[in-house]
C-alpha cells in the first residue's frame, strides 16, 4: 500500500512517522468513508429503486456491504492518500446530492 | 436418500479433481512419476470438468435447484480436500482411488433411483 512499500516495513526497519500517519489516514478513510458511502447509497437506493418500498429497502440494504467492501479495497489500492480521499468524496457527494433531491433531508 | 446423493456428489467431485490434478506436471510427477504425456492433458482436463459438471447435474436432478447447488458446493470442498490429503500423504494412491471412486459413485445411482421410486 502506501509508497514506503510493505517490504520496507516487514524488513524490520522502524516505520517512519510519515508512514504511520499515511496508514492511519487510510484506515480512517476506509472505515469512515467506506461506511459513509455505503450508508448514503443505501439511503438513496431505498428511495429511488423502481420497486415496492419494502423491496427497495431490502435490495439497498443487502447490497450495502458489497459497496463498503469495494470502497475499502479501492481506498487501500489508490496510489496516494489524496487520491483515495478524492475517490471517497467523489462518490459521497453525488449520493448525498441525490438524497437531498429525493427529499430525504427535508425531515 | 440425501446421504446417497452426497456420496455420489463427493465421489464424482473427488474423481474430477483427481483428473484435474493429474493433468498438472507437478502432481502427475508425485502420483505417477514423470511429466504428463503430451496427449493426456486435454483428455484429463475434459474428464475432470465433465465429472464436476456431472456431479452438479446429479445434485440438481435429485435435490432440486434449491438444495442441489448448495450441496454440490459442499461436495466440491469435500472432494478437493480429499485430493489434497491423498496427494500429500499417499500420492501413489491418487489414480487408483479416483478409479475406485468412479464405480462407487455410479453404484449408488440405482440405489438413489430406487429410493426415489418409493
Amino acid at each position, binding site marked *: 500500500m502506501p509508497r514506503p512499500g510493505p517490504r520496507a516495513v516487514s524488513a524490520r526497519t522502524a516505520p517512519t512517522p510519515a508512514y504511520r500517519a499515511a496508514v492511519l489516514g487510510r484506515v480512517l478513510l476506509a472505515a469512515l468513508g467506506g461506511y459513509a458511502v455505503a450508508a448514503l447509497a443505501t439511503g438513496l437506493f431505498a428511495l429511488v429503486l423502481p420497486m415496492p418500498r419494502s423491496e427497495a429497502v431490502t435490495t439497498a440494504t443487502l447490497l*450495502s456491504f458489497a459497496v463498503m*467492501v469495494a470502497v475499502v479495497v479501492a481506498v487501500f489500492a489508490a496510489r496516494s492518500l489524496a487520491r483515495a480521499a478524492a475517490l471517497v468524496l467523489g462518490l459521497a457527494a453525488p449520493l448525498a446530492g441525490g438524497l437531498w433531491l429525493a427529499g430525504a433531508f427535508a425531515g | 436418500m440425501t446421504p446417497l446423493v452426497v456420496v455420489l456428489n463427493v465421489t464424482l467431485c473427488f474423481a474430477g479433481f483427481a483428473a484435474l490434478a493429474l493433468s498438472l506436471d507437478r502432481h502427475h510427477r508425485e502420483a505417477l512419476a514423470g511429466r504428463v504425456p503430451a496427449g493426456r492433458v486435454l483428455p484429463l482436463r475434459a474428464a475432470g470438468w465433465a465429472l464436476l459438471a456431472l456431479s452438479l447435474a446429479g445434485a440438481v436432478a435429485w435435490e432440486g435447484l*434449491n438444495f442441489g447447488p448448495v450441496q454440490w458446493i459442499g461436495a466440491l*470442498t469435500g472432494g478437493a480436500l480429499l485430493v489434497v490429503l491423498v496427494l500429500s500423504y499417499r500420492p501413489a494412491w491418487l489414480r487408483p482411488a479416483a478409479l475406485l471412486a468412479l464405480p462407487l459413485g455410479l453404484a449408488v445411482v440405482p440405489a438413489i433411483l430406487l429410493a426415489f421410486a418409493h
Partner: protein
Amino acid sequence: MRQGFRHAMAWLHAWSGLVVGWVLFAVFVTGTASFYRAGITQWMRPELVAIEADPGRAADLGAAYLRRQMPDAMGWFIALPTPEKPAISVMWWKSMEGPFHEALLDPATGEPTRARETRGGDFLYRFHYELSMPPTLGRWIVGACTLVMLVALISGIVTHRRIFADFFTFRRGAKSAQRGWLDAHNVAGVLGLPFHLMIAYTGLTLLATLYMPWGVRTAYKGDEIRYFVEAGLMPELRWTAGRPGTLAPLGPIVAAAMARGGEVPEGLSVWNPGDVNAAVVAIFEEPHGLSHHHAQIAFDGQTGAVLGTNGAVGPATGTGTVMAGLHMGHFAGPVLRLLLVLCGLMGAATVATGLVLWAVARAPKGAAPAGFGLLLVRALNLGTIAGLPAGIAAYFLANRLLPVGLSERASFEVGAFFGVWVLVALYAVLRPGPRAWTQALGLVGALYLAVPPVAALTGGLSQPGGALRFLGFDLWMLALGLGFVFAARKAAARAGAPLRRPVRGMTGEEALRA
C-alpha cells in the same frame, strides 16, 4: 502498476487479517459449534428425555407460569416442546431493550424443570455474534471484523493469484516452516472459499438493519416494524390500548393455528398480554427449503379471532431470507451438516494458519531478539488458538463436574469457559517458546479426550437412554481430542531439531527446492 496494486493488496491482506484474526477465530469456532447447537444443548441437559406433550396444554402451562412472573409484560414468548428440546422454554420482557428473562418448564407440571441449570449450546451461539459483551456492542464488533474478513478475502484472492494453479499443493514436507504454513493457509482458504465468502456476507446481512439502518431510515422514517410488516416478515400487530384485559386460553389458539397452518407451531409470542389489545402470534418452523422465513398467524388475544398473517415476500426479501437460511444451515440434514461443519473448521483453520504465518514470516533471522509486537502476536496466537478450544472443552467438563443443584450453576460453567481460556493465554505469555505450543495443544487434546469418560462416570451410564445415547457427541469429542494431540505432536517435531530426514513422498523437484 499491476505490481503496485498486488503489493497494496498483499499488505492489506496481511494486516487486515491480523487485526481481526483473533476475533474471527473465536467467531468461526463458536459459529461452527452452533451448527450443533441443539445437540450440544441436549447433551448438556441429559435429564430431559423426549416425552409426548400436548402442544395446547404446553402453551397454557407456559402462559400460567408467565402470568405469575410478569402479567404486565410487553411480551412473552413460549417455545413449545419438541423431541430435540422436550421442555417448554419461556421468555418475558418489559421492553425491547431488555432484560429478557427466561426459564425452562417441565411440560408435565408447568413448573421449572429439575434439569441442571445450563446455557447449553445457546451460550456458544450467542458468543458467536455477541462475544459475551453487551449485545449491541458485541454485534458491532463482530460485524466490523466480518467486513474486514471480506476485505481480507478479496485482497487474499488478488495476492495469491496463483492459488488456483497451486490448488492442490500442500507441501507438508516443506523444509521451510513458512512454506508449509502458507500451503496450509492456501488449501484451507481456497477449498473453503465459496463457504467463507457466503458465510461472511450472509453474516452481515443477517443483522443488516442493525449495521445499515439507513434504507429503513429514509424510506420508512426509521419505522422498522412497518418495514418488516410490508416486507412480509411479520404480521401486523396492534398497539396497547392501556386498558387491562383478560388473555384468552392459548390451547384453542394453538388448535386454530394447527388447523390453519397445517402443523404444530414452533412457538407463540404474546404481545401486551395484560392489555385489551393483546395479540398472540403463532410462529411456524420454516418450510422445507433454504429460506429462513417463518410463517406467522396473529390472533386477537381476547377473542382468539385471526387478526392476520405475514404476507408473501418479494424477490429481494426472499433473497434475504435465503441468505439468512444459508448462514444458519437449518435446512441441512446430518450429512450436509457435517459438510457445513467441515467448512466451518476450514474457516477456523484458515484464520489460525494465517495468524501463525504472520508471526513465522516475521520471525527474526539468526539470534536477533523478537520485538515486543511479535512477542505479543505470538502470545495472542497461542492464547486464542489453543485457549478458546480449551475453554469450550472446560465448559463441557464443568457441565458434568459441577453439582447438579448448585445455585448460579450456569454462570459457573461460563466461568470455567473463560477461566481456562485465560489460564492458557497467561501460560502463553509467561512461557513463550516453541515448547509452549506442544504443551498447550496437548492439554486441549487431553481436555477433549476427557469429556466422554467424565460424562460416563458422572452418571452418564445410568442416564435414560444408556451409554450410547450421545454417541455422536462422544465421537466428536474423541475426534477433536485426537486432532489436537496430533497437532501437539506436529508442534513437538517442529520445536525439536528441524526435519532433516527426507520426508516420504517428497519428489526430487521438491527436495531440490526445499
